[in-house]
């Protein structure tokens, strides 16, 4: 095994030209999947690349470096629209995992139950990818996530940052995760809701994202569009709003359960975010 710890982004991109090179960020998904003698032969660790560290606020939005851990994000001073993301961060495994795992790694691992995805989808996030050959490109998170363990990242690209355009100032958000125990649990289903209301309680902006109920977490656009102009109390989640979901039976729950539970979870999240 060749394991590289580049100390600049250029070096990292250079190493990535090596065939079959795997990128490891925090490592919390890499190590559990490791089988004896089946480790990747070329591994690129991003932990020592300074360009990927930290969080910056620019004129148009907030940029999370790919090396930002969940704990660092949770401690950062961010507006209420990011509350769902922070709540999701606190549900990532345990404090030990949050201290190591990165938001970017959560996206690149592309699990259907990735804790960070619904909240980032609800924030209309984008990701920036960079390669030595083609420079940088931006893509929406929605387009980046392609399927179970599939993303739009090319083999020579590094996801360098997650960009969140400034959400409306009065946007509130909430996140809810349902599992069979407290802590260290993979979601049965989860929901992030971001909302903006006018002074009368009418919905100006609603974003609802659901995870672990489809190969990739989904924004429920029909529900979101229908809610605009309604009083928040009149938002009623119906089965047809969930049409784009495709939950499965697995060891955690039945598909039928997920259909029922997620509908309830969304309805409650809407009340909770306002309350």
């Amino acid at each position, binding site marked *: 095994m060749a394991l590289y710890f580049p*100390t600049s982004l250029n*070096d990292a991109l250079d190493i990535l030209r090596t065939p079959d090179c795997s990128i490891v960020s925090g490592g919390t998904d890499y190590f*559990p999947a490791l089988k004896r003698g089946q480790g990747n032969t070329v591994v690129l660790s991003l932990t020592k690349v300074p360009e990927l560290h930290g969080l910056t606020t620019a004129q148009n939005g907030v940029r999370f470096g790919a090396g930002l851990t969940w704990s660092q994000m949770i401690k950062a001073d961010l507006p209420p629209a990011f509350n769902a993301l922070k709540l999701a961060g606190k549900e990532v495994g345990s404090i*030990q*995992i949050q*201290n190591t795992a990165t938001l970017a790694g959560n996206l690149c691992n592309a699990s259907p139950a990735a804790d960070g995805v619904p909240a980032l989808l609800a924030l209309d996030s984008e990701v920036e990818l960079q390669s030595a050959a083609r420079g940088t490109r931006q893509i929406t998170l929605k387009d980046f996530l392609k399927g179970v363990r599939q993303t739009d990242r090319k083999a020579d690209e590094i996801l360098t940052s997650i960009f969140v355009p400034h959400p409306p100032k009065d946007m509130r958000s909430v996140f809810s995760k*349902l599992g069979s125990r407290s*802590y*260290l649990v993979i979601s049965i289903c989860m929901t992030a809701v971001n909302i903006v209301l006018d002074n009368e309680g009418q919905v100006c902006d609603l974003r609802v994202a659901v995870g672990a109920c489809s190969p990739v977490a989904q924004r429920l656009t029909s529900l979101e569009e229908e809610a605009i102009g309604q009083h928040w109390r009149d938002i009623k989640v119906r089965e047809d709003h969930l049409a784009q979901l495709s939950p499965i039976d697995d060891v955690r729950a039945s598909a039928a359960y997920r259909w029922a539970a997620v509908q309830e979870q969304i309805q409650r999240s809407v009340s909770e975010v306002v309350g």
Partner: protein
Amino acid sequence: MNKHMVQNALSFTLNGKNARVENPDGRRLSEVLREDLGAKDVKIGCNAGDCGACTVLVDGEPVCACLLFSETAEGAEVQTLSGLYENDAKTQMLSNSFLNHGAAQCGICTPAMMVSATALLRNTPEPSEAEVKDALGGVLCRCTGYRKIIDAVMSASAIAEHGNGHIGQSLRHVDGVHKTTGQIKFGDDVAPSNCLEIVVLRAPFHHASFEFGDLDAYQRDQGLETILTAKDIHGKNAFGVIPGFTDQPVFAEKFARFKGEAVAAVVGVPAILRDLSLKNFPVSWTEKTSYHTSAEAQKDTALQLHDAHPQNIMCRGYVSRGKAHEALKAADVVVSGRFRTSIVEHGYIEPEAGFAKIKDGRLEIHASTQAPVMDLDSLEEILAIDRNRIRILPTAVGGGFGSKLDISVQPFLALAALKTQKPVRICYSREESLQSTTKRHPADIELAIGADASGKICGFVFHGDFDTGAYASWGPTVANRVPVHASGPYAIPNYLAATKGIYTNNPPSGAFRGFGVPQSAVAQESLFDELADVLRMDRLEFRLHNALENGVPTVCGQVFEQGVGIKACLEALRPAWRKECDKAFELNAQEGVIKYGVGLAAGWYGCGNTSLPNPSTIKSGILPDGRIQLHQGAMDIGQGANTVISQIFATVLGIKVEDIQRIGADTDVTPDAGKTSASRQTFVSGNAARLSAEQLRRQITERLNVSFEANLSFESGRILAEDGGGIQALHLDQLPQDKEGFVFRAEGTYDPPTKPLDENGQGHPYAQFGYAAHLAVVAVDIKLGTVKPLKFVAAHDVGQAINPMLVEGQVHGGIAQGLGMALMEEYIAGKTENLHDYLIPTIGDIPAIETHIIEVKDAHGPFGAKGLGEHVLIPTAPALLNAIKDATGVRLYALPATPSRVLEALHAKAVGTEGGI
């Protein structure tokens, strides 16, 4: 290319000292800390971040060392428990507090708990319970039920007393400080660095035939030291625990009957094994049909998994008294139901591990075990060598709960050490541990119970199939124990209980806290609630109305004239039952999706083997310098046998516990104190310790010609005895010494008086039973199906609490396991082979537990004490199921009651189709 970016050496600060590692090689930080730097206080439980046992501080922040490339620690400050204990007053305070609450049982999770708690207290000196849970939520514990850990971190007032440690005192665990400082050595902590390692090749299918290719070529090409297969076994390639049922091969031959069964093992140096995937191991497989339920395996068309066991029926158990079927026909009311429980994993945080070497031509096995002498018995047969050539030196046991009664790593270690004549080690991965070691028997139960109009139970008919998996293990014990216990602690005149143990292609089911009784209690206690409801009787009063009493025969016709404590347990719950029912009623009067419910259940458990000899021997002696040695071979697996047996011994001899020098366990030195199972150590080995101390006292007092009750004090080189006649001194250096150097020596042996069961299961199966009753309060979200336990009240008749703090520790831990069994645990071979798909409770799942210690003394127990270890989880699952029913009107018949199953049952009730499984 990029050579400068590859780290060939690594340096960081470990516990305040410079640490340098050559060739970190992308290894996990946990491995480097343990193997290169000797920090064995960093424990490995899963290598996946699921258990948190490897928690260390990197630059002050808790992380799982198993999830980090060691290279990422370059330049960092890394702290483990031992370093923190040395340097941080907070960690020292935590150690003290853990000891004062009995918060470390087996001790395998203790380093991670203490490291995480230290990090918490640095930022939050007075944390709330919620803050403690958030901080420790990433560390799994299977022994304590977490509540004592929460108390310890929150600096609740100490439970432990400082005194002579005589019975009734909450003495700290005598070996506790080795756990809170991380010094204690478990199965994987004892091997020298760089010794040969063993990796087992396991069946990838549930049922398959196989053939090996050219093993010699593979061994040569891969640079292995050797390969072990069935051909290397000179004795019997079979092990088991019940005579007549030793059916499990060390290495499968031609057929593998479950996924994860061992077929071969490779032995080599660590550097080679690390990169060996076994993918190209020369073996070819032909998959066969596999069976995963008792029903499938009993079909006429099913393949027969073992010769002489048609329909895959391993064995049967039977108890019959009176005329059960006729009584049901004549009953005024009858309730019935079919129940199903899941395969449950023991989930100890220490995977099976050990080390072996050849010393002076003898084989030494250092491994984690609950039964050292049984290990010796098995190895003698497998290896076909004289048992005097084998020495078992158990390491500390990082949780057992029944599974470490069976051998696991021992034969591999023995075969490899004998074949190579070199030191060897092995540690199962979590996946291997889950795949290959025993489980709780899943049960399919049909039960009908009838009562007369006055509420007296008149008839009881129970049929249970217990899936023993691919091999027998303790299946025959389960099949025999369940019919004796399925009545619960009640008087039932007409009773029939028939069980079958069934072979399937699941992993072997063996011993797990309760030997099948927790499963039968689910059915029996659930239907007791149904029966009480039909009779319109209060559920507690209905139980009291039918509870067993002194002088009333059990379903085996055994009459105890004393010591039956179930009524006292149930009565102890009455105030809480009334209060919690009223509270739930009030809360439920409010509209809402959360419904509150209160559930009750009782249980009983016979201590020791069922109608079989079950002796323990405890040796003790006085050395010429006045030291008192206690040879204690009863394995302490965290429950506290070392402490309790010392307390009994000290009380009888009249000395302080701290003055005892404890020896063992070691099969060369300590006599056989039997296995740590069947809740027998306090009762049986405790009695042996009592007898041993009595003998010692008799010898000393006779020698000094003082009364037997004289006060004895042991000083340097002499014993002083004081009775009404004054003080006598005995100088020890003038006395002759035996070959072990003792001037006085005693061996106490105790075997509980039992009588065989006849063909109807009538007889005296146990000398004593212990009794228990639990009350559970739950909140059920009726739209999401989630069940949140809010409180437990547990009443346990232990006869005499030798150590009340340890009693509470057992109760808490048992409730946590019972809660897991009830609400979340289900092992599915091939699907839940890790600790993120197989869920056990975390610190966030266990609510407050109120323990009532009931002491109805037993004539056979030491000082009246009864066993406890298994009683503690028998009532838990049915109490929770009864609480769910109370809250929602819905009864769960299949475990675990996951949100998915609960919601399904709620929907079924809404459309009128409830009640099936």
